[in-house]
């Protein structure tokens, strides 16, 4: 298992379009990808879960991955959350 911290930087948090990017990225990996916010786990491959998470700007998230490609997955997820959503 692998854990990494990510901070939401996009002005409007993670809603539909950003959530779509998060899910698309997570789905590229075989590992289980979870995002932990305020102690609750959300499946990063589920758009419904990610939208329910309702992360807003500056929220601190933990990316928890486990599986064959867990390291690559965690790195990619931090990147998409911190850099991929700013637009």
């Amino acid at each position: 298992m692998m854990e990494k911290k990510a901070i939401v930087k996009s002005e409007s948090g993670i809603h539909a379009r950003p959530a779509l990017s998060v899910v698309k990225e997570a789905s590229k990996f075989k590992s289980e990808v979870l995002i932990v916010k305020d102690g609750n786990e959300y499946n990063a491959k589920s758009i419904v879960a990610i939208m329910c998470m309702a992360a807003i700007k500056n929220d601190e998230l933990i990316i928890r991955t486990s599986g064959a490609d867990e390291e690559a997955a965690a790195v990619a997820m931090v990147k998409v959350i911190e850099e991929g959503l700013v637009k």
Partner: protein
Amino acid sequence: MLKAIGVSYGIAIGKALIIKEEVPEIKESKVEDQVSELARFDNALKQSITELQKVIEGVIEKLGSEKAEIFEAHLCMLEDPEFIGSIQKKITDEKFNAEFSLQTVATQTATIFENMDNEYMTERAADIRDVTKRVLNILMGIKVVSIAEIQDECILVAKDLTPSDTAQIDKAKILAFVTEIGGRTAHTSIIARSLELPAVVGVGSGIRVIKDDDILIVDGEEGIIIINPDEKTLADYKKRQQEFIEFKNQLEKYAKMASTTTDGKTVELAANIGSAVDVESVIKNGAEGIGLFRTEFLYMSKDALPTEEEQFGEYKTVLEAMNGKPVIIRTLDIGGDKKLTYLPMDEEMNPFLGYRAIRLCLDRTDIFVTQLRALVRASSYGKLKIMFPMICNLQELRMAKKILEQCKTELKSEGVVFDENIEVGIMIEIPSAAVMSDILAKEVDFFSIGTNDLIQYTLAVDRMNEKISYLYDFYHPAVLRLIKTVIDNGHNAGITVNMCGEMAGDTNLIPVLLGFGLDEFSMSASSILRARKTITSSSYEECKKLSGPILSFGDSDEIKEYIKANIK
């Protein structure tokens, strides 16, 4: 025959296609063979996914990838391991039928979104319902219509069309709209005019007599819908349709003419637009400028605030396409009936009297500054003018101008080159601004009378309420007096006075407004040629003489009769 409000000229003849909003009734039952029930669900799911992929391809091809995003989110939901997983579990573990399992999980999920106390998320609940409906319809063998998937020519019949519906309209397929609710200034009507499709709105419950595949004649000028006409009527309307096309072609000669009266007074005929896409029609119709660029569509078509760069790009595109002709860009007018999904606003008792337009911008200066910076930067690519909406007092105007000046100073220190003399104007749409227009005129370069709101506020009439829509009256003497006052006060201060509401394109009133001294008329691009025909065949001196007595009338019906009798 149905009679309602004709909002977009032209005659269409075609088959009705009814856009339903019915929810199929779901029965709860237990199944014996959950394996085959699961297979039935998985099949419907697969079919929905294929359908959606086709929709996405079509939308991307016709309307661009941005418009397809909403459907991509839908697709993502159908591939969602948790959402779909819980439905499948309900079928296998609890032996519920597929329809009930789907409906139950979808309702639970939608409820979570709805309770998130965030308008954006509340709308996502609608997305869940949307995809659920798609799968349910397949499970239950119900045929539905998605506007993006329409293959044959048809006339859309609906309660109302949402912006996401109209975004999918393909002009080659859709001949006209007929809607149950709405008025001249509703979103649907504005879109119909910009697409140049005939439309009749506000039909009321009578619309229900129309059935799928009925042959309809839609007369968007008279506001008439004829259902399954006899041969004589059909032939008659075919002839009128032909005449209309010829009339339109004949109008085209007005595209290149100046808007000058027979006695040599030149006014400006400008167009109202919502985005850079509309400019093509503006140029085709020979507008002398853009009198109103409503920037809110830039904000409404996104799911986040548009950045300075995005806005700058859009403004620059419009300015360059207009090639030096004036472009009046109105700063964000959001609130009232126009909401942003990603910018939650409190529920208000009276949204039209509430937190909107300049009020919001002066409060959320971060949003305002981003837009003003984009505007100032774009000013070096053409003749850009800035207009503030909903000004109700002098303080607001001064505050807005101060923020604009700060943006200019900032940009200058960043070394950005821009037009140092950007003209600044205000919308006159609140009665207090009209009454105070002598004072306000001294601090701006132009006025633009926004008749839609000015009428609504002056007459205290909610223009969306069908029960009282008869009170919403262009010809009300109070409205005409206010307009005259604003024009006179503007001219006394040496500034130009424009009008950018629907009234400016009303060919019966154009001679009156001309006589009042209005300098610029801004309207839907599709109304320009007609307006130019009226102006080039009018004499300013005569219009002045004829419009004079109008202010002494007390009854709008008298005014209408007077105009009919005296102004051709």
